[in-house]
C-alpha cells in the first residue's frame, strides 16, 4: 500500500487527478443541473470505456519507452473479423444468434488483436525496428486488411444478445461496458503495479541494457507487452461492436492518438520507465470531461482539442523538466 501511495505521489498522477477534479468542479459550478446527473456520467463513462481499454495496453507499451500507433486499426480489424465470423456462422446474418456465436466472435476478436500485437512485438523486439515505424506500418496495414475483408463497408448483423447484453445492458445501473473496462483496468493496474511482469516493464523502459544485464528476457518481455496491447485492442474492437451494433471501418483513425494523449496526460513518460494505469484512467477522462463540459456549458466544441493539446504539452514539458533536473545530479 505504501508503495502504491508513493508511486501515485511520485508520478504526475496526483497533479493530473487535481486537474480532473478541478475541471469537473468548474463545469459543475457553471451548470450544476446538467453535469452531475446520472445520464451525463453514464454516457461519458460508456463513451470512454473503449478508449480506456486501448489506453491500458498503451500504458504498458509507453512505459517500455515504446509506442503503438496501430491500436485503432487493430480495433477495426478485430471488429470486422469478429462480425464477419459471427455472420458466417449464421448464414450471413447473426442478428438472431445466441451466446455460442458471441463467444466465438469474442475469441476471433481477441485472436485478431493478438496476431497484430505479436507481429508488432516481433518486429520491435526481435528485428529491432523502431516501434514508431513498426506500428505506423501496422496502423496502415491492419486498417487496409480490415477494409479489404469487408469490402470497405461497415459490417452489420451483430447478434442482438450481444448488443443488449454487453452493448447497452446495465448491472445495478452501471453499464456493462463500463464494468468490463473497469475490470480490465483494475487487472492492468494490479499487474503493472505489483507483479514481476510489471516490474520488468518499468525496468526495460528505464534502462533496457541494465535490464538485459540483470538477466531479464528483454526480447520476450517486449513481445508480450505488444501482444498485450494487441489483445486489448481486439477486446476494444469487440466492445465497440457490441455498443454500436456494427463493425465500423471508419471513425477510428485517431483512436491511437487519443490513447497516447490519455496515457501521457496521466503522467506516463514517453521516455519510459515511469507511469501508471491509475494515471491513465485520469488522463483518459480529461479530454472526455472537457468535451462533455464544453457541450453542456455551450462552448464551441472545437475548443476541446485545443484545450487537450495545451494540457498535453504542459504535461510533457513538466515531465521533461523534471527529468532534466534529476539527470543533472
Amino acid at each position, binding site marked *: 500500500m505504501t508503495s502504491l501511495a508513493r508511486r501515485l505521489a511520485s508520478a504526475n498522477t496526483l497533479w493530473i487527478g487535481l486537474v480532473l477534479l478541478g475541471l469537473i468542479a468548474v463545469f459543475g459550478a457553471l451548470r450544476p443541473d446538467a453535469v452531475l446527473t446520472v445520464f451525463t456520467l453514464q454516457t461519458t463513462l460508456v463513451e470512454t470505456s473503449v478508449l480506456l481499454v486501448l489506453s491500458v495496453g498503451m500504458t504498458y507499451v509507453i512505459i517500455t519507452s515504446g509506442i503503438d500507433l496501430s491500436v485503432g486499426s487493430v480495433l477495426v480489424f478485430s471488429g470486422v473479423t469478429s462480425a464477419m465470423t459471427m455472420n458466417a456462422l449464421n448464414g450471413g446474418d447473426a442478428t438472431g444468434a445466441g451466446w455460442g456465436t458471441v463467444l466465438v466472435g469474442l475469441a476471433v476478436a481477441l485472436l485478431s488483436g493478438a496476431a497484430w500485437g505479436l507481429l508488432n512485438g516481433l518486429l520491435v523486439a526481435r528485428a529491432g525496428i523502431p516501434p514508431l515505424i513498426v506500428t505506423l506500418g501496422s496502423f496502415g496495414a491492419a486498417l487496409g486488411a480490415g477494409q479489404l475483408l469487408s469490402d470497405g463497408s461497415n459490417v452489420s448483423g451483430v447478434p442482438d444478445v450481444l448488443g443488449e447484453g454487453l452493448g447497452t445492458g446495465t448491472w445495478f445501473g452501471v453499464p456493462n461496458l463500463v464494468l468490463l473496462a473497469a475490470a480490465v483496468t483494475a487487472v492492468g493496474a494490479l499487474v503493472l503495479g505489483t*507483479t*514481476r511482469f510489471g516490474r520488468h516493464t518499468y525496468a526495460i523502459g528505464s*534502462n533496457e541494457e*541494465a535490464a538485459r544485464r*540483470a538477466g531479464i528476457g528483454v526480447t520476450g518481455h517486449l513481445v508480450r507487452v505488444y501482444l498485450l496491447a494487441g489483445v486489448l485492442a481486439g477486446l476494444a474492437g469487440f466492445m465497440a461492436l457490441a455498443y454500436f451494433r456494427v463493425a465500423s471501418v471508419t471513425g477510428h483513425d485517431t483512436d491511437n492518438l487519443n490513447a497516447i494523449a490519455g496515457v501521457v496526460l496521466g503522467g506516463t513518460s514517453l521516455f519510459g*520507465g*515511469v507511469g501508471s494505469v491509475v494515471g491513465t484512467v485520469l488522463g483518459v477522462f480529461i479530454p472526455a470531461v472537457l468535451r462533455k463540459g464544453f457541450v453542456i456549458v455551450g462552448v464551441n466544441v472545437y475548443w476541446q482539442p485545443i484545450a487537450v493539446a495545451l494540457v498535453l504539452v504542459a504535461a510533457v514539458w513538466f515531465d521533461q523538466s523534471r527529468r532534466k533536473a*534529476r539527470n543533472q545530479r
Partner: protein
Amino acid sequence: MGEPLLEARDLVKTYGSVEALRGASFTAYAGEVVALIGDNGAGKSTLVKCLSGVEQPDSGSVLLDGEPVRLDSPTAARALGVETVYQDLAVAPDLDPAANLFLGRELRKPGPLGWFGVLDDKEMRRRAAESFRDLGVSLQSVDVPIGALSGGQRQSVAVARSVVWASRLVFMDEPTAALGVVQRERVLDVVRRVRDQGMAVVLISHNMPEVLAVSDRVEVLRLGRRVARFTTARTTVEELVGAMTGALSQEGA
C-alpha cells in the same frame, strides 16, 4: 597460489574495425584482489564484459576452475557466481534502490499471490536496507528512484548489488570513480571484506594509490593485450605507469 579461479586466454574482440582486445589474457585467484589497470581504451571494460557474459569474444577461451565455460549471457555468468559492477553502472534510474538490488531476482510473495507473480516489496526493501547497512551504504531514503540519488550513491548501490549476489568472483569496473573520500574508503573496505570471504575481486581503477592499497596483484592491459603482471607488495607506481605506457614490458606476461 594454486589453480586460478578464472582464466581468460587470448581473447580477441573487435567492434567493426576497432580491435578492443587483441589476444588478451587474464587470471584471477580465489581470495585475492587483482587490480586490472591500463590506459583509457586499453580494453579493460571490454575484457570485463567478455568475462561477465555481456559481450562474446570473437576467439579465445575462458576457464573457470580449469574447466572451459561458455558465458553467452549475463545470466550464465551470474549462475556461476560471477557478478559485475559495470562502468556505466547498468542500473534502472526510475526504480528505487531495493528494486535495483533485486532486479531480475525479484522475491515473490509466498502462497497463491506469488504464483501470479506478485512481488514481496516489503521483504525486498527490508533485506535491501539490511544489506545497505551491512555494506555501509548510506541513503536518505530507500523509496526514491535511484536516478534522484547522487552519482556516488548510485555507484554504491551498484557495488552493493554485485557483492550481495556474488559467490565466487566480482568484477568492479571503476567502482570508486564518482565517490568522495569517505564513500571510497567504504567501497575499499567492502572489497577487502569480500576477498576475506574467499571470493576473487577484480578491481579496475585509475587511482594508483588505491590500487597499491587494496590489491594483492596487478595485471596491466595495453592496446588490448596483457603486457605485465605484478605482485603488489613488490612493485611501485613508477613500474605500473611504465607498464601502462609501454615504457616497460615483460616477456610472456
